[in-house]
């Protein structure tokens, strides 16, 4: 009776899984490929999210702010500064304006000239920072008014260097998503190859199944289930290793810079959890396509 217990659990569901031999080189190939691709996908995902954060930060920091630089002889600097502030106060679309103090200007120059820069003895331009309303202001009109009332004042609305930075960050984010798509495509291709190899190696299994009345759905389902589960297992391992790799990167606070900021923040740590599910979906679709194609060939 004991030997008949092997039939316990050999119901249609589990049996469909068992009709495909569990061994063969496609076992480790599928698992390894899914694991490696998911490992890389974790980094691509981290890159994409980090680039997104960078783009948002740069955009947020620079949007709605602008600077007016006043270069004038020392005896006219205070008067032109007052004139600029008055002008900004009456310009539609300007929320507020203020002149940077000597300490703030020294802080801006400190990275280049050191902390002991004698600002008072240098003929530095005065910077006026202002913020705009949501509706924005007429930059061209403001430039004309500045020309008339404070000839030494130049408007810098940050557009010139904000745009390339934001574009660069957006491109980086796009690159991350593109990498993810390529990784997904490579995974699909590898699993298709593995599935084809497995189907070819198991031609006798298919013959026997057909002889006893198995329909294509059943046969394909058996292979799909086997490959999907292998892919999920490999992807789960790859995801864990990838997240561990991200955790081992130096923190952004310690060293600063973009690369050290590569990683996840907040809810972003949950995003890698979807990668095994995506790998399963890719494996399912790739194997199903390969299986039905092969079954048509083996008619």
């Amino acid at each position: 009776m004991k030997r008949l217990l092997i039939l316990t659990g050999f119901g249609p569901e589990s049996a469909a899984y068992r009709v495909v031999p569990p061994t063969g080189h496609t076992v480790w190939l599928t698992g390894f490929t899914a694991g490696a691709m998911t490992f890389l996908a974790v980094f691509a995902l981290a890159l994409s999210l980090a680039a997104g954060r960078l783009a948002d930060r740069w955009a947020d920091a620079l949007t709605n702010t602008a600077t007016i630089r006043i270069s004038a002889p020392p005896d006219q600097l205070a008067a032109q500064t007052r004139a600029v502030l008055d002008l900004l106060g009456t310009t539609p679309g300007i929320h507020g304006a203020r002149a940077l103090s000597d300490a703030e200007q020294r802080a801006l120059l400190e990275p280049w000239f050191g902390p002991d820069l004698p600002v008072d003895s240098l003929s530095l331009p005065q910077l006026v920072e202002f913020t705009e309303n949501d509706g924005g202001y007429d930059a061209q009109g403001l430039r004309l008014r500045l020309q008339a009332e404070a000839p030494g004042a130049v408007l810098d609305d940050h557009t010139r260097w904000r745009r390339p930075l934001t574009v660069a960050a957006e491109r980086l984010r796009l690159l991350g998503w593109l990498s993810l798509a390529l990784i997904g495509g490579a995974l699909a291709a590898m699993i298709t190859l593995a599935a084809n190899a497995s189907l070819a190696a198991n031609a006798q299994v298919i013959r026997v199944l057909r002889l006893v009345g198995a329909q294509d759905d059943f046969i394909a389902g058996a292979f799909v289930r086997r490959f999907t589960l292998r892919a999920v297992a490999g992807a789960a391992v790859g995801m864990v290793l990838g997240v561990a790799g991200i955790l081992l990167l130096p923190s952004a606070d310690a060293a600063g810079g973009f690369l050290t900021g590569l990683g996840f923040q907040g809810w972003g740590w949950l995003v890698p959890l979807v990668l095994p599910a995506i790998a399963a979906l890719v494996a399912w679709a790739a194997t199903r396509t390969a299986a039905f194609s092969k079954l048509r060939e083996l008619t």
Partner: protein
Amino acid sequence: MISFDKVGYSYGGGELLSDISLTLAPGSFHFLTGPSGAGKTTFLKLCYGELLPTSGRLTLFEGEARSLSRNDVAMVRRRIGVVHQDCQFLDHLPVAANIALPLTVSGKEPDVADLEDLMTWVGLRPLADALPPSLSGGERQRAAVARAVIMSPEVILADEPTGNLDWEMSQRLLRLFVELNRMGKTIVIATHDMNLIRTTKGQVAARVLRIQNRRVQLAGADL
């Protein structure tokens, strides 16, 4: 049930079967004989949709063979039990699971008691958890027979089913086929074994078909 109307079959090299017209009526019992290479196996393969006729019209149950999709053929095979000369199994699954395979692919749970009875009957119960590669030729043949009948199919096609069996097991197997025929199943057995045919003809109204010169003919009383 299975009907041949001027059916012919050609391999690349030439015509193997030609102008075959006959009907395997429900509940009939046929032996198929003929010299080696005459086309017995090909005839059986046509009967279960493994091969398609190159001429004529072959009807498998309700459908014309050439118009059947792969899934239709699968459904036909659930109504036909086949015992091959070279019994093929899923070598990684135990014998019991292999015998239950037709039920499995049909989405049915095997009844353990029925399976146990069937395996006892063919003398394979002690080998239920053995793997097919460890079976002898005779054991494989018996496992194939058990697999062919487990679904209680309407038609049973057997290609030299007693080829690897001793006389006692051959007789037991024959009795099973006779019993199945009495239950209304259609039986077709391809065999060289004239003793088997004579023994059976004493138990059941069996017709003998002989393949000769590419045609299937009804054999005379000399058998």
